[in-house]
């Protein structure tokens, strides 16, 4: 983070500082000349992709210029992906139609695992819990990480230091973080014992609400930094000129945030939400250590339920069926998010900027 870099969030004392910022022509390419050049480039590429008028000619020219590498280059990745992702996936699918305890050979069980699964209240509940935890994660972490990310994008040295400190949780393993929080939240010797007015008797792990709250808090503590990082980067990429124009039009700090920063962060928001959704649906380790799916089955999310079935109860058939169901549900949800957000089209956010 170079000190010369202009403050993207709020150009501060209005047009003057913005103008100096532009003159300085900092490394991020947001100087006036840089901006113009990039805007022009952006315009050209949009012309090629979007309008299509002179498109085909340009595309074919591009194709001639940079030939795509042959399939041979992709072979190692394809083989690896096939061996360690596709083959196991198929085997899990096969396993889900068998009954196997780990002893002897699996025996074909038809649809038994699947029919049992759909009549299992814990299974149905676990899917809802997974969705609930994911949803809460998105709702809690997104606003937090946008605010922190946008704030951290500023050039001040103090912000850089604080941001670095704030990113520390990201470097710790989920397991270590969970163990730590479990100790911190001990009702007799941890934080709740010191703050009875807030926690009551501190029975956080003894109620559904409490246990879910802890899971949301811990995952927010650990993953907000990652998403802040995404937003920090995206904020820095917002062209300076937009803020300058807004400042000329008399927009204050808040209006600039809502009318420039947020819309410009759209793709970053979608990226971050999809990461949260996929990560949230497959959360496992924090549940294993913090709540063990308890109290009762109140935080038994699907991924944890799969682990219980397969590796605790030695019912590998049922575990495989749950795993497969989770793959299907997570795929469906990710697809819906991708479609709704228009992420698959990846439309530019700098339309009309030149």
């Amino acid at each position, binding site marked *: 983070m170079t000190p010369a870099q202009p403050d993207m969030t709020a150009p501060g004392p209005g047009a003057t500082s913005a103008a100096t910022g532009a003159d300085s022509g900092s490394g991020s390419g947001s100087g006036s000349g840089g901006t113009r050049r990039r805007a022009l480039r952006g315009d050209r590429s949009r012309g090629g992709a979007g309008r299509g008028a002179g498109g085909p000619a340009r595309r074919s020219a591009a194709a001639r210029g940079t030939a795509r590498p042959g399939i041979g280059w992709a072979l190692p990745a394809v083989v690896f992906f096939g061996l*360690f*992702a596709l*083959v*196991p*996936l198929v*085997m*899990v699918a096969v*396993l889900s139609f068998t009954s*196997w*305890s*780990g*002893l*002897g*050979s*699996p025996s074909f069980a038809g649809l038994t695992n699947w029919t049992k699964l759909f009549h299992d209240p814990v299974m149905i509940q676990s899917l809802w819990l997974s969705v609930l935890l994911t949803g809460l994660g998105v709702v809690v972490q997104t606003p937090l990480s946008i605010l922190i990310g946008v704030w951290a994008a500023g050039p001040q040295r103090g912000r850089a230091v604080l941001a670095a400190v704030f*990113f520390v949780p990201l470097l710790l393993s*989920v397991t270590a973080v969970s163990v730590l929080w479990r100790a911190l939240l*001990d*009702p*007799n*010797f941890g934080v709740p014992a010191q703050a009875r007015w807030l926690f009551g*008797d*501190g*029975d956080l*792990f*003894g109620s559904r609400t409490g246990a879910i709250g802890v899971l949301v808090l811990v995952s927010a503590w650990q*993953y907000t930094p*990652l998403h802040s*990082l995404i937003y920090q980067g995206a904020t820095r990429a917002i062209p300076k000129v937009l803020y300058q124009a807004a400042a000329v039009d008399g927009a204050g700090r808040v209006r600039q945030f809502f009318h420039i920063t947020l819309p410009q962060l759209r793709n970053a928001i979608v*990226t971050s939400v*999809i*990461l949260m959704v*996929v*990560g949230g649906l*497959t*959360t*496992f380790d924090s549940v294993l250590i913090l709540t*063990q799916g308890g*109290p*009762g*089955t109140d935080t038994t999310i699907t*991924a944890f339920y*799969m682990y*219980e079935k*397969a590796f*605790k*109860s*030695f*019912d*590998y058939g049922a*575990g*495989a069926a749950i*795993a497969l169901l*989770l*793959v299907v549900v*997570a*795929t469906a949800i*990710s697809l819906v998010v991708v479609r709704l957000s228009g*992420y*698959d089209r990846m439309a530019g956010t700098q339309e009309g900027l030149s």
Partner: protein
Amino acid sequence: MRMSTRKRIPTRTPMRSAPAARARITRTVACGGAALMLGTSLTACGGGGSGSGGGSQEFHVLVYGDAGNKVEKKIVAEFNKTSKVKAVLDTIPGADYQQKLQTIINTPQAPDVFYNWGGGSIRPYVKAGLLMPLDDVFPNDPKIGDHFLPSVYNTAKIDGKAYGIPMRGTQPVLLFSNKKVLADAGVTAPKTWDDLLTDVKKLKAKGVTPIALGGGDKWTTMMWFEYLYDRVAGPGLFEKAVSGDKSVWASADSKKALSMFRQLVDAGAFGSNYDSVKWTGGGSAQLLASGKAGFELMGSWEYSTQKENSPDFAAHGLGYTTFPSVAGGKGNTADLVGNTNNFYSVMKKTKQRAAIAKFLKLMYSDDFVKAQLSIGNLPTTTNTDKFLDSTGDPAYAKYQLNLVSKAPSFQVSWDQAYPPSQMTAIYQAVQEFTDGKIDAGAFIKDMQALDAS
């Protein structure tokens, strides 16, 4: 899901993406599943060769990997000095032992001799015809069991046949207490259940949690069920349940035990936040040591844990006694529950039966007993009491050994008496009943749904 995330999520995030790592769980499990499947197909192809490698002159001993291995290593080394057939010690570290064992026991990689918890932990293997009864391991030595305390030796019997030689220490569950807290509240160690209820009231009036309970671990709560069922119904009820008679769970005795436990919980004996407390990690033990609780029901290892964490308290303030009796109950006050011991069991397909028999006979040698005592284990051989004076805490060791040798019944913990696959279901029923989420009827149904075979 994988396809879509691969294609669309920018993979080059500035730091290693943690959620992406989490997303990999499905794949990891998928790989695991495949590896397991490959494992079985290998078995099918392997033609059932023995793990000891046919002609080679050795046999494999598989043991749970922890600090206790010191003794196992020593015994193996001693055995190998004189034996032509060598013993090879393999260890599996930590909590994954049961899972790993389950996946290799029917493959060519299976050991010849393996560590287990007796009871339900070997029942599935016996049913699958994988184990050799001790009668066949020691054809010339039908009295081999006489070297061990019967209450322990009997817990590795399946359908009347013995399958395990005790090979570590015994760990009965005792009622521990903080002497100072009890004295301050004018309470003495309870002899009967009614005493305990009175004690609870007095301790509560003093503002301490009467009984520390690490409910987050669940097996901690289960110990209360184990003792109450024993005291009310006698050891027979659970034995019948484990051998397949599910009707006993609905008996009047079973309901009485449940209502007594309900009464204890409702009296506030465990406070209100026990579900957030754990024994693992030191939460409940710390409650007892710091004087915030009066009692704790825990395995005999509580003593060494307290000694390590609060040496002063362990030396002067820690009291221990047996579980109180229940008026009109069928169980003997001398009955115990807990971990009876760990056992060595022998695979049926081993080619080194004679050498293994010789090896297992070391498990009641004087050297073995001394070595176990030196690392704090309390062996359950009949010659153990000769060596107790040499231990660090002779009084505590003698107290336990006396209890174990006189116990008419020593019940293996429920989660170990049932096959491992039923553990989660037992824990859930126990916790939900304790929390009042399910009533006695639902608890009985949950227990009847367990698969004992």
